[in-house]
């Protein structure tokens, strides 16, 4: 139904979408998740052209909506949008909010618009608030009305931009219930959300947004239970990451250590673990690997900490010849490192120029 090709959105100081290529089919319920600032909202706002793409194409039902000649208003009438801040029209009451667009744009009669509107209100349980004004409603009620307003236009797809983020925890449920209902009815939905459980429950597809695009795309089980790609994993596992690329033998060791300590403290890593991480890093990275590298080298150090599991991993990725650190002649260092780790593993890789991967689980 909707095809997005090479979508790029660039701002003066950031490019949240670099190259997005996705297909959205009728009946899809897509949850869009990812860390902040990764272009989730930007993506769905580009779909109904609230944001103008810098480049790329979007096709809706075969029609290229990014074309200058396209009548975007007509296209938008086929798409509904629900906003984080509800955006109900304050100068109209509830039923007017719902009737406005069908009457003004679809040229429905007042009676038709009213009947359909009131019916929709009933389905969300707010028929008795038909004559109230938005400022007389609670957040949850407002959002439900907003959903009805979108539905009244009988759209082909509804885009929801963090629909429950601005709600009191007590009201999140009622709105989620309505959305769930829509999904069950078979409407095409695309929801940007931070609510992981809801995102998993309701969707048939999950987009994990990162690095300027849809980083990983899969079923809820795939993404949530079996994330494949690194960042997805990190996200899903709520991993905290401390990463550093070293390219010179004179790198700032003391600074690194201070930052590592800070990282540990911030994420409430146990002090002993931080100590051991420092020790492992010094022994393996500095004492064992570094001397083995050529003048122009890349050594990537990453610490991943999972608060849930309270496990700290260190990964070293380095280029140069294949060198299994476990075979290092520096037995003293290795012994110390081993002592401080639960496991030290080595693998040969070919990724971004890195040839070697050492994974250490810190005690």
């Amino acid at each position, binding site marked *: 139904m909707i095809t997005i090709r090479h979508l790029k959105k660039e701002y003066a100081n950031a490019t949240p979408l670099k190259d997005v290529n996705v297909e959205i089919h009728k009946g899809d319920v897509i949850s869009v998740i990812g860390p902040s600032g990764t272009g989730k909202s930007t993506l769905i706002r580009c779909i109904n052209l609230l944001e103008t793409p810098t480049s790329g194409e979007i096709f809706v039902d075969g029609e290229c909506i990014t074309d200058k000649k396209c009548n975007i208003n007509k296209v938008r009438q086929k798409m509904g949008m629900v906003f984080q801040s*509800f955006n109900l029209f304050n100068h109209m009451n509830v039923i007017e909010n719902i009737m406005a667009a069908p009457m003004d744009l679809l040229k429905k009669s007042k009676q038709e618009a009213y009947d359909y509107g009131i019916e929709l209100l009933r389905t969300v349980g707010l028929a008795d608030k038909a004559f109230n004004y938005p400022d007389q409603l609670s957040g949850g009620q407002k959002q439900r009305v907003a959903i009805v307003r979108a539905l009244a236009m009988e759209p082909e797809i509804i885009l929801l931009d963090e629909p429950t983020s601005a709600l009191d925890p007590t009201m999140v449920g009622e709105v989620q219930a309505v959305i769930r209902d829509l999904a069950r009815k078979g409407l095409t939905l695309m929801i940007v959300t931070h609510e992981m459980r809801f995102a998993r429950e309701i969707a048939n597809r999950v987009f994990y947004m990162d690095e300027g695009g849809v980083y990983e795309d899969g079923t809820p089980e795939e993404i949530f239970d079996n994330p494949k790609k690194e960042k997805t994993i990190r996200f899903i596992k709520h991993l905290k990451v401390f990463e550093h690329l070293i390219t010179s033998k004179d790198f700032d060791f003391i600074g690194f250590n201070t930052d590592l300590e800070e990282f540990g403290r911030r994420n409430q890593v146990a002090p002993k673990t931080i100590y051991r991480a420092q020790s492992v890093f010094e022994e393996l990275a500095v004492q064992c690997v570094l001397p083995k590298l050529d003048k122009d080298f890349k050594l990537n150090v990453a610490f991943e900490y999972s608060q849930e599991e309270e496990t700290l991993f260190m990964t070293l990725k380095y280029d140069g010849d294949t060198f299994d650190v476990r075979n290092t002649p520096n037995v003293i260092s290795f012994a110390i490192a081993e002592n401080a780790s639960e496991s030290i593993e080595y693998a040969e890789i070919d990724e971004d120029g890195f040839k070697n991967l050492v994974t250490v689980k810190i005690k």
Partner: protein
Amino acid sequence: MKTKRLLCLLLAILMVSILLVSCSNESQQENKFETFEDFETARLGILTGSVFDKQTTELFPNAEKYNFDTVVDLLSNLNENKIDGFLIDHAFYSAIGWEKSGYCAIESDKTTPSEFGFVTSDTEKGNTINRELNEFIAKMNENGEVKKLADKWFSGTKPTEFEDYQSLTGEKGTIYVGMTDVDPPWSFQNDTGLTGFDLEYMILFAREYGYKLEISTVDFSFILGGLKSGKYDVGIGGITITEERKQELNFTDVYYQSPVVMVTKGWEKGASRLSNLSGKKVGVMTGSIQAVMMPELVPDAEYMEFNSVSDLIAALGSNKIDAFGCDESLYTSMLWEGQAVDRIDEPLGESNYGIIFPKGKKLELQSELNKFIADRTADGTLKELEDKWFGAKEPLEFADYENLNGTNGTITVAINSASMPFVYLKNNKFVGFDIEVITAFAKEYGYNVKFEDTAFAAILGGVQSEKYDLGISGITITDERKESMDFSDVYHVEDLAVIIRSEEDANDLSQFNTASLGVVTGSLYGGYSKEQFPNAEIKEFNNFSDVLVALKQGKVDGIMLDKPNFNSVAREDDSLSCVVVPAYSVEIGFGFQKNEGGDALQAQMNTFLAKLDADGTTQKLIDKWYGETEPQETIPLEELKGNSKTLSVSIDTTRKPFVYMYEGKPVGFEIEVLYMFCKEYGYNVTISDVSFASGLAGLASEKYDLVCGGLYMTPERKESVNFSNPYMNAEVVMAKYERSGFLNFMLSLQESFEKTFIREQRWKLIVEGIYTTMVISLFSVIGGTLLGFALYMLSRSKNKWLSKSAKGVAKVYSTIIAGTPTLVILMLLFYVVFTSPDMSGIVVAIVGFTLIFGSFVYDTLALAVSGVDIGQKEAAYALGYSRNKTFFRIILPQAMKMFMPSYSAEIVNLVKATSVVGYIAVNDLTKMGDIIRGNTYEAFFPLIAVALIYFIITWLITVLLGIVKRKLEPKRRKNKNILKGVKR
């Protein structure tokens, strides 16, 4: 209800503002200290240790006394109203007048004069000198030389020539004189050297007796010490001779005696001198010849400039200035309007009047006008007009400038209609001396005339910029003005007048000169009143009670009547007071038939009256019946049991206190006399209570034998009536009524109201002004709103170029409007942009305010729209609303919430801002108020009235806009209206 509260607030503001006005008016009436007795409980200053200390305490035991060390302190405290007066000798007082004005001296025979003597040392030389001085003093007194000297020194003006003691050659010897040098006028240091009355006296003495004088100037105490030690032979310095001093010092005889006077604040009685203005605040009109002349006449006054005559008058009235310079004709017109002003009548100079033209232009017109002036001066027409317009009374016919039927075109003449008597409005037409001159000129040279009424300054400006052909309104020719415009030849010359507030003497008959006087129709006083006060307005009433009521209600200012009548009426009412009219007196007597019987009766009465006079009964009766208190007794006429005939007597019981009713019976002086007369001669009486006019008629028809009723024995009556000898010669007085402050204030309010609105249908001017103000406001609001909206819509246009230029234009335009004062914008438009004389001021005003309002609408609209949450726009777009639909359906309605309050407020501001259009010759409400002010010399009422009207207008607008706002409030819509036509 909110409206009720608002109305009450309005009323409260009205009352408060009027009270404030009346208070400021009241403040003019300071406590007047005019006679010695006025100081009985006053605050008096005393020069510590002086002879006046004792005198003040003796003369004013109940006064509050304050001690001061020097005369300077006394004067400054007097100036600051901390004391009301102080005693000092007249000689000293006269010296005060050299330097300062604003004080006057009140004399009284109750004070003990100060005696001055010279002091000599107790040595042989001193004693010799003492003897010689006494000789000299006697001589001086005899030959009147001392008087000459006193006139020179104590007349109030500083002498200009002084004797020089150093020129004495004296061969006999040297007298060592100790004197103070800080005691004018006796002995003081002048810029020419040491001088003073005492010193000159000594110089004359020394000259006569061949002495030289060696002067030492020292403190007073040192003089006395020096005399004792023989250092000085004579001590001088205005030394008063007191008993205590006589014990210690050798005084000469009294060489001068000076009465002691009470010094207090005020002008010199009767002397309105120009020099009195020194140090005072004087007003002049900006740019006028008076502004140049006054500072030359009184250089050390403080000058304040004003823009119009009405401002000058208001400033005088509210004590902001003490006097102002203007022309004689203005003074005359102020008198027409009954203003309480006086004039300093000293020759002050002349001002020349001319008609102005744009410099170097309209030369043909100029020469025609000059020829006209020359011709009409020669044949006396101009003088006739001057007599007509600058006389004592306002003229009643006016030139008709509207039906000239000229064939040579129309001349536009700039005038200012607040320039009485040159140009002013009467019944909505322009009248005045200048109007007549121009009309006559136009008639002669075949022109039509179009008068353009504008502010005075705008006449000058407008003529300079050639907007008008010429300008006239009592414009004086000054050198400065000549530089930027051409003047015609002089067409009128006036004396400069300096106007001060009038100092009414409560006992002066002149207060009735232009008053409104009440008379009983056909009474004697009708004629007397007209005779005594030819310029007064005479109002006639049916009877005395009516005229008295009219006096108390303020419908008339005074009534003439005889003193006994006045006394009886004044008994009951303290607010009545009277001023004697010395020109008249009336004889009062009884009336008898003019026949034999009447003669006999008359003779009897005369004898009887003579008897009463002789034994003092008449006086006793007069005191009883015409005194302060009303006698509380009845006359037992019914007890008369005469055995002689019965007299038929007519009594007029409205003639209190001669004859009146008390407890149902006739009483009064005449009744008592009648009673006594009848008793004496054994008469009975039958009383008929009729008016004295009927009584007199009854005499002729022999119905009555005797007529009582305080009859005036006028010559006319004497022809048909036999009068007894007059039993009384009564004074004639003018009675006036001192209304209570509040009543006075309410009456003056009423009068002001009448003058401002009713007279000459001035309310029509107000209505016209309101109409103009509303028209300008309405069109400007509509125009400005459309302009602002249009500009905003353009700035929103999709067309980038259009929207950018619209925004640019808007920014520049807003900046200019915001940075330029409204008046300047209007004047620029009127004088620079729309220079065509056909461009009416109203149109320019509408253009100007449209621009101003439009800028505001644009800014406010932009702000209001930007205040609408961006989410609203996004939601609308997401639904599929086009840009324009979104704006009109979603954004604008919500923006109105922020827009309307500012919009309504700005409309009100606009209405108020239009008050400056008077400067571009538009007669709006404010200008009309000004015009009325100029014509009536009412300083305050027109202003307050105009302010009130503005308040009401803006209040109504606010209410109206409030209704509109409420109607627009989305939440107020009824649900059934929202869903009209929908089945639920």
